[in-house]
């Protein structure tokens, strides 16, 4: 007994070591993934420590020093109320990163469930759910999110809810196809004949076998979610104007066009974060699913 367990533990060790080696190999071949990971980690750490590292409070006004050029006093300049742009950009990560991730998590979960149920149930339920999916896909999704946020009333939570509500259709579509494929496998039939209920079979037998593509899609999507959230709050359908949210800061900055630091730094914050997640997503897709590479 002990010899068997020691063999299995050594295989495990071997597998985990080869996994590490593979990861190193891929990172060397895709240096951009590494760059993306570094930038993303820096931002996520920033989100956690912003309150203790930001020089001043994001809402602290200093009317004597309004619209200061970036320099010794204000690293990234100050805005029309003398608020420190640098502190605000740091604090902004605490809004944008959780918002983007929440959209992806809620949206993809919703899509996975809808798609899985449609594919597994088949018949009328499938037909109804898929028509609904097509309907949602017929709207340009950000426009739909704008309408929903406007109806709910603009704030951060509603913007996230609205984006999640329009985010699921692609996941539903992909999942449905995969579930249809897996449903026909013999092990599913085996599970059924062993007396497992439909719910159990769907969530314990079928879903684990088709979740990977949804995870890849979700990773690829984080950048889009962040940029969409920023777009919503840019047009005023997000946090209130004084919020240090990046998209909102850029839209306030339009009125101060010549004070370029007011819009450039929050804008670059969005761009760097989105780029980082795009690098990671692209690399992950290349590594996990070479067929999607298109070469």
């Amino acid at each position: 007994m002990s010899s068997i367990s020691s063999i299995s533990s050594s295989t495990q060790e071997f597998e985990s070591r080869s996994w590490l080696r593979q990861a190193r190999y891929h990172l060397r071949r895709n240096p951009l993934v590494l760059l993306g990971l570094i930038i993303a980690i820096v931002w996520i750490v920033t989100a956690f420590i912003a309150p203790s590292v930001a020089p001043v409070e994001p809402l602290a006004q200093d009317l004597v020093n309004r619209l200061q050029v970036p320099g010794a006093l204000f690293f990234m300049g100050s805005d029309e109320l003398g608020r420190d742009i640098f502190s605000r950009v740091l604090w902004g990560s605490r809004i944008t990163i959780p918002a983007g991730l929440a959209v992806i998590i809620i949206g993809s979960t919703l899509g996975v469930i809808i798609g899985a149920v449609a594919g597994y149930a088949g018949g009328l339920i499938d037909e109804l759910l898929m028509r609904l999916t097509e309907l949602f896909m017929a709207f340009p999704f950000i426009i739909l999110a704008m309408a929903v946020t406007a109806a709910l009333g603009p704030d951060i939570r509603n913007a996230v809810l609205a984006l999640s509500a329009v985010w699921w259709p692609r996941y539903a579509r992909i999942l449905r196809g995969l579930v249809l494929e897996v449903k026909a496998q013999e092990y599913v039939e085996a599970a059924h004949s062993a007396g497992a209920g439909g719910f159990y079979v769907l969530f314990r037998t079928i879903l684990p076998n088709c979740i990977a593509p949804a995870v890849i899609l979700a990773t690829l999507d984080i950048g889009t979610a962040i940029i969409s959230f920023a777009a919503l709050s840019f047009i005023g359908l997000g946090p209130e104007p004084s919020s240090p949210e990046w998209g909102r800061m850029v839209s306030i900055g339009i009125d101060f066009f010549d004070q370029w630091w007011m819009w450039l730094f929050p804008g670059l914050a969005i761009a760097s974060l989105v780029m980082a997640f795009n690098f990671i997503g692209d690399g992950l897709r290349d590594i996990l699913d070479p067929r999607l590479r298109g070469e």
Partner: protein
Amino acid sequence: MNFFQYFIRRALLVTPLLLGITVMAFLIANLIPADPTIANLPPNALNDEDTIAAFRKKWGLDKPLHEQYLTYLGNLLQGDLGTSIKTRKAVGEDISRRLPATIELATLGIIFGIALGVGLGLISAIWKDTWADYAARVIAFIGISFPVFLLALIFLTVFYAQLRIASGPGRLDIIMRPPPTVTGLFTVDALLAGDLKTFKNAFDHLVLPASTLALYISAIISRITRSSLLEVLNQDYMRTARAKGLRERYIIGFHGLRNSMIPVVTVIGLSYGNLLVGSILIESIFAYPGIGFYMFRASTSQDFPAIMGVSLLFAFIYVGVNFVVDILYFFLDPRIRVA
């Protein structure tokens, strides 16, 4: 299948979609807000019993939901999208007055965008893994990762404020007068009036916002062109074409590009959604008086009827464009004619 059959079949698929969109818009407008009356009327009108009663009667708000929808649909068919809270005018009227400006910008944007996207994709695929490929892909990556409003602000600063080689905000210089209205497209109207000076001025004002829009939508187009063309370049018929001794330019231009266009056309249809969203963000920065700017003003001032009107219009345009794309397949892909 002949073209007529194909067309009818596609049209039959689109109709329920359009109806479905009106149902969705109706549900969003009537079920989500706590009280549609409050959402749709200006704050000061809420003290006025008569206005509220008139509003409720017009939209059938005292009737059951399905009758409300029919009332909504009836009003919609007459072009009635409600009254804007901010401008106090009919939303339909507001939109139709601003639509030509957006059509003008979007058309130029999509032309620039396709040219840039297909061009970059072509360069990328032909000179795969060279510096030209990397440069083209970096441009695409910027187009995807930079928020379009940031690109617009950077372009405006660099090319208008600093280098002074492009015209700035608006449709015309302030001192210019708009050409006599025929189509509402300033460039076309100016040409019709034979006024080259106005044409040049209007066109100059379009270049910068249209280029921003182009960079934004070209990112996806160039990626798809690259991968699609790379796949086609490996096909047997390409080798045959080379073996026949055809010129490389002809092989890529005729055999390669044409066969790689189907996914590209699909993506152009889909990126029309980006074009519409992009027009909101870009027009708001260039103070360009089209639908996008109207939407921006409406959302910053919570002008609910206007937001719903523009959303509905954009959804219809999006479905319309993708219908046209479906029709284009018929000409691009001979296999459909056989099926």
